């Protein structure tokens, strides 16, 4: 079998940054080149997206949102990822990456219209290079790969990041996408947020072996890292993205983390997992961890923390008020409005019929 090609770890710039256990090495941490302001901003954003997540949960309980999928515990991934990419690199998210969208600059009050059920797509993906949130599990993975192949055909050096949960790697789409990416050397980073649960199904019940190591079989490298360390995420994504930009091809990053809240507002996690597990992961909560590190570096003091909290509270209140003032579009517009750029006559007739049926009843 002389023609079997082994993926040579030598061409992998990410692995040397991490210990075998997936921790960013002290040396790599010291040479990230992030300014104190940039470091503080990472912290600020984590606090902001967490507080927003909590507020969205409240808003759902108050009948202002139909559904909400909390991401508490996964903020280091949301924030570190966006900070590591160029603004023009595309992100293909699942349903849980609201925080990434915020970091890309999308107004959270606008984004929440999706969860309020009053808009099918409240932002223009091309403005933010942030694809729509998708519910069908793993569908964003082939989308991301296709887009990355397109970027390559256009000789652009923009790369694509597609992110998904551990459960998504059980889907056929995921494997097809991985295969295409390897074969076509697509400039794509696969970011698995391994939060240990796919709704009520634990990792061990649907994945044998390691997710990161699956990459080898598709002809590109993969690594499992600590997903609750914002700087580790930043370093891994930036390095994998630069590699892809230079034509190095795909990379799979498996970031180990924990979904601290329910799967969605319709879920009750106490029915299937223990408090002990939650407590164990709470000790690794990415936000206090990074705050302690910043304080240890002398980059954050009481006054700075208070200022961050104040600013975040103000932003969240604005979001709340703006969201509560949002109303639903007329039914005809909601259903027919954004389907075709040039609707056909029969489509317009159908719309008229629908609208007049509302009046006559």
């Amino acid at each position: 079998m002389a023609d079997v090609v082994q993926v040579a770890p030598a061409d992998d710039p990410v692995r040397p940054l991490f210990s075998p256990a997936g921790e960013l090495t002290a040396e790599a941490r010291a040479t990230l080149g992030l300014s104190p302001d940039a470091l503080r901003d990472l912290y600020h954003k984590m606090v902001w997206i967490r507080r927003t997540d909590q507020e969205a949960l409240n808003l759902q309980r108050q009948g202002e949102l139909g559904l909400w999928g909390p991401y508490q515990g996964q903020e280091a991934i949301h924030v570190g990822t966006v900070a590591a990419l160029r603004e023009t690199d595309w992100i293909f998210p699942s349903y849980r990456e609201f925080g990434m969208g915020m970091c890309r600059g999308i107004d959270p009050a606008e984004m929440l219209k999706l969860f309020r059920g009053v808009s099918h797509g409240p932002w223009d993906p091309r403005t933010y290079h942030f694809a729509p949130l998708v519910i069908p599990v793993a569908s964003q993975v082939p989308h991301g790969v296709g887009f990355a192949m397109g970027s390559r055909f256009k000789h652009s050096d923009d790369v694509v990041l597609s992110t998904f949960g551990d459960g998504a790697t059980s889907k056929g789409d995921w494997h097809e996408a991985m295969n295409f990416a390897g074969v076509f050397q697509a400039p794509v980073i696969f970011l698995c947020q391994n939060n240990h649960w796919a709704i009520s199904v634990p990792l061990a019940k649907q994945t044998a072996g390691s997710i990161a190591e699956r990459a080898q079989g598709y002809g590109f490298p993969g690594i499992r890292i600590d997903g609750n360390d914002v700087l580790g995420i930043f370093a891994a994504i930036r390095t994998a993205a630069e590699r892809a930009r230079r034509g190095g091809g795909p990379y799979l990053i498996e970031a180990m983390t924990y979904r601290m809240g329910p799967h969605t507002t319709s879920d009750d996690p106490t029915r299937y997992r223990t408090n002990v597990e939650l407590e164990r992961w709470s000790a690794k909560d990415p936000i206090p961890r990074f705050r302690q590190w910043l304080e240890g570096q002398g980059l954050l003091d009481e006054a700075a923390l208070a200022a961050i909290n104040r600013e975040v509270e103000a932003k969240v209140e604005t979001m709340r008020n703006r969201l509560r003032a949002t109303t639903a579009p007329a039914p005809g517009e909601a259903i027919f409005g954004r389907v075709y750029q040039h609707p056909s006559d029969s489509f317009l007739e159908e719309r008229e019929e629908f609208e007049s049926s509302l009046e006559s009843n």
Partner: protein
Amino acid sequence: MADQTFRLPDLGEGLTEAQLVAWRVEEGARVEINAPLCDVETAKAVVVIPSPYAGTIHKLHARPGESVAVGAPLVTIAAQETPTTVEPEDPAPRTLVGYGPGAPEAGVRRRARVAPVATGEPGADVRAAPFVRQLAKEKGVDLARVTGTGPGGRITKADVEAATSAPAATSAPAATPATPATNGERRISVVGIRKAIARQMVRSVSTIPQFTEFAIFDASALMAAREKQKAGGRSLTPLPYFIQAMVKAVRAYPLMNSSWDESRDEIVVKQPINVGIAVNTSQGLLVPVLRGADQLDLHEIADRGAKLIEGARAGTLGPGEMSGGTITVTNVGASGPVETGTPIISPPECCVVAFGAIKPRPMVVDGQVVARPGAWISISVDHRIVDGALATEFLTALVAELEKVSA
């Protein structure tokens, strides 16, 4: 100050009602935005509802235990005007996502979400998933006679299971309003604690092969010890003595403090002895847990036990105080002429011990029939873990401990 009535939203994608578990505020109290108002239980989860307004609680529209329809008023708050800097995008009535702006808007036809009532006639349109039909077939349940509680009147697995298990509820169901039904029957919606008890009991009886053994013990020593305590200014109920004796017997027979791990075919012998204490409350049976009972002396057992029982009755215990038991005790003689019974194990435990009332009984001492205080003990054990011989040894040890109580 304008009165704002907050209506129960659909908290979980297509729910029609929720049960109010407890209020966290009182009429007349002040609340801030997002302060917890109440706990409600839906078919999917127990959730806390945060206040959408800041202001004074004017009226609570439901009582704990009641079921509230989605869209029905929950609380009226005399709201403090919030300085909203943003104008509504259009002056249409504000739409709460869960249920729309009150009554259905004129002109818009809404599809009824109400479950069609199963008629019970043969050949009626039965709605059930294939695995539920399979289960019904296996259990010999006629689906046409089962009322579906799932979405759109669909028959669920639980409905089929309920149809097979004998109706043997002992204590009164939690105070939930009955829904009037035809031909004199009453239908009581089971939610909250009643539902949790039902789930736990079905799990016990359908997964644990259990048997029960009985014994009578001579309580003379125990009563003498209580007198001694009383003379020392401390009056103790028999329960702390029961618990202490149980703990000592468990130490000699650690298998009684274990669990059967189905997934690995292993017996897990537990280290601390956490004693669940069955308490009858107005809400139904609750089992607060006395943790590390093997590390406590008699007075600590008495004090902590009393606190837990009080907390269970007042409804102030957190879920952490009602979980993690490794063996359970129930005092069946405490409130009536009950001598003994066949207690049901609380899964995943291995053993439950029931004590009957202590009263004078004829006992044979040195060939003479004499009256002595005594009581029945019964234990139910998991036969996968413990055989009759070992259960007997444990029961013998328990009786011996109780008969030699000295403090």
